[in-house]
């Protein structure tokens, strides 16, 4: 058995909501000791749920991200039972300390002295205001690697702009190019966004590159990770098209500028859909063969990509007539058997049962002290010699205080009781 790649690396994790925790999830999965630094006196919104103790009125709204507690019940310690936290918190540790007080800051100093990486996704300057600027941290631990993940970076007009991922995406161009073609009011822009999904791996890459450089040279550094800039490359072709052809790309629905057909098609049963994407004329010919060369498909204006792009609505209607007679999986399997690109649109329930994810061991059953037993979605990549494992269930608030304070930081039992009395150490929000 080989050690996991990041075994022996300790990460002090000040991150909240999605982007930062997603990054530290990957570090934890592949062996780092990630210690979440939390406070009993401050509840960061949209992290361990939206509020420490949701009122019946809030639960009654039914908003799906708000009420996602195990058994849909907040329970005695709601902060340990919310899906938006528990989905990423496996393999991490949780300690509590109030860093706004001097003795709390001293705890953090002792922790950072024993750590390799410090990461936060606060707004710009928050770490500095808390007395945790890079210059301070570097005095405590000269080769520390520090990453801050403000949305827009540490300079520029938007430096202090407060925004969730989706708002940053608006400024970065992502929002303008998605949506239904006919939705001029932009009322139906999907709420699921790309920034957090992009920031996780981007931040891990930047941290591991710095860690690699430290392995080579012994030198740490400071990383300014502007989440907006990390994802701008993902729209690269749009920025080049804007320059090269002054093209203004608006929402395309599910269409594509260079492929047709390229859409989602209704299948047998309510809420059942299949995607079909044909990349070139050869694939179109294979699609015709898969459909047994129906008369509509033999029309000359469908022969070339340019023709199909021009007559896309007609094409979509013809294909929909075929897909409506099949389930998404039947349609996709039939088309894939003819080397035509297609796949079912999977709901969460469908994906949970998906035979491919199951065959590859994507889900891992775990029992969590406060949330019960569930199949946790797993790892983002497979490593042949150092496979990741669910070493620990999602961390409860303050669950690892005795390890961190006692074993790691060497506080005496008396000191620990004192810090408990002062409200630093505990497992319940004040």
């Amino acid at each position, binding site marked *: 058995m080989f050690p996991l790649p990041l075994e022996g690396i300790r990460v002090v994790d000040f991150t909240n909501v999605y982007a930062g925790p997603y990054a530290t999830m990957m570090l934890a999965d592949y062996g780092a000791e990630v210690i979440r630094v939390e406070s009993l006196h401050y509840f960061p919104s949209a992290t361990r749920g939206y509020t420490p103790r949701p009122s019946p009125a809030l639960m009654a709204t039914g908003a799906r991200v708000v009420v996602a507690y195990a058994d849909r019940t907040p329970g005695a310690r709601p902060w340990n039972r919310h899906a938006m936290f528990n989905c990423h918190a496996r393999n991490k540790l949780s300690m509590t300390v109030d860093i706004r007080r001097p003795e709390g800051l001293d705890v953090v100093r002792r922790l950072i002295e024993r750590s390799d990486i410090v990461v936060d996704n606060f707004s710009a300057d928050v770490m500095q205001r808390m007395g945790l600027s890079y210059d301070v941290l570097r005095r405590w631990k000269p080769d520390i690697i520090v990453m801050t993940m403000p949305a827009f970076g540490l300079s520029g007009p938007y430096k202090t702009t407060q925004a969730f991922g989706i708002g940053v995406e608006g*400024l970065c161009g992502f929002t303008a190019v998605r949506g239904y073609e006919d939705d001029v009011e932009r009322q139906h822009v999907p709420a699921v966004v790309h920034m957090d999904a992009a920031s996780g791996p981007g931040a891990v890459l930047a941290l591991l590159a710095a860690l690699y450089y430290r392995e080579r040279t012994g030198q740490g550094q400071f990383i300014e990770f502007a989440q907006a800039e990390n994802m701008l490359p993902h729209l*690269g072709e749009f920025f080049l098209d804007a320059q090269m052809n002054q093209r203004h790309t608006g929402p395309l629905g599910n269409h594509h500028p260079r492929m047709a057909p390229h859409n*989602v098609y209704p299948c047998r049963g309510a809420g059942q859909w299949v995607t079909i994407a044909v990349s070139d004329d050869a694939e179109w010919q294979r699609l015709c063969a898969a459909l047994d060369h129906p008369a509509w498909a033999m029309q000359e204006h469908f022969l070339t990509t340019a023709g199909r792009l021009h007559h896309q609505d007609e094409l979509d209607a013809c294909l929909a007539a075929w897909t409506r007679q099949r389930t998404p999986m039947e349609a996709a399997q039939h088309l894939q058997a003819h080397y035509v*690109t297609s796949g079912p649109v999977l709901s969460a329930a469908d994906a949970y049962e998906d035979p491919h994810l199951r065959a590859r061991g994507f889900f891992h059953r775990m029992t969590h002290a406060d949330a019960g037993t569930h199949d946790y979605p797993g790892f983002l990549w497979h490593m042949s010699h150092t496979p990741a494992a669910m070493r620990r269930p999602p961390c409860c608030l303050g669950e690892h205080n005795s390890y961190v304070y006692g074993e790691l930081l060497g506080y005496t039992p008396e000191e620990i009781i004192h810090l408990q009395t002062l409200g630093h150490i505990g497992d319940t929000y004040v």
Partner: protein
Amino acid sequence: MPPQALDDLLVLDLTHYIAGPYCTKLLADYGARVIKIERPDGGDPCRRLGPFPDDIPHPERSGLFLHLNTNKESVTLNLKSFRGRQLLLRLVAKAHIVVENFHPRVLFSLGLDYPFLRPVNTRLIMTSISNFGQTGPYRDWRAQDLTLYGMGGEMYTSGATGREPLKQAHNLTLYQGGAVAAAATMTGVLGMRRHQVGQHIDVSLFETQAGSIDRRLTSLLAYQYTGDNPGPGDALPVGILPSGIFACKDGYVDIRCTMPWWPRLVAMLDMPELLDDPRFRTEEARLNAENRAPFLRLFYAWLQRHTRDEIVRKAQQVRLPGTAVNTPAQVLNDAHFVERGAFVSVTHPVAGTWRLPGAPARSSVTPCQLRRPAPLLGQDTERVLREFLHLDDATLRELRQDGVIL
């Protein structure tokens, strides 16, 4: 020039299209030396994808290729020929990393999959990126961005109530998968550096979606926690609070208000009287959906009186998430990105000068650098083969005649 974090790493890049090239571009931007192996007959098919200047296709002018292949060297090598494969194996012996994104059976049929490479270089980190991974029932399925988002991502719940599911901007799943592959590759490199473990990494784009924080990772767990299996549907508003895209005087803005930020919203609107208004005064009143319409009437009227810039400025003042909705062209000229130099001008010998998105992160000691534009097809073939394999003129001539290199 400052040092770069990965400037002692040699990457053999067997990737094409988007996900693989984005992975190796990231490694190259952090300083790795990336040698892109291209097929002699036309190279990376991405060279044939637009956008092109004035929409005129040209293999050295694809905007997508120019963007995805900065900082790389291009070597042509016909891997279908025995000598091409021999040369590749000799390069593998010198490399730290191989990244590939062929369909899973291709390298096996060429005798170049991991079990063949490992004996050549036990210290190697090999990253394979594929649509569905190297195993499993969908292994050989074809996929595009749309397929992956529909199957792995949260497309099913994206869109309006009663309408078809809606995709995001195209190709995002491929970029996301490429970024995950770069992170994965670096865990492998650190495992090699710290514990002397060479290994193979299997990245399934389907799983990079199914395990993605926003939002399938969450919804797969929320489904088990609550039994909810939502379909496309407009986000349920939380009481009266505005959260979404809203038309204003001269465009669109994105405003997101959560419960604790009600006072900030009132301050942004400069309507202190709302704090005493019985329809909005208590949290219970603000959670009452019946009060939403009266509030939105006030809110919409206010939006129509203000421009994008004014709204963003006011939102910033009160620390409420409020941002403008930019088109890609507006992003290029946005004062913030201009001031920070988020885009960098790159001059390419054939395609000309274009502004490309710059560094994904800013590291104080080892900053990312744009050292060279995307390569011309095969521009580095001779130099690389001489440098690493010490081939002489006669051998290179023979390889060219036999179509092994261009």
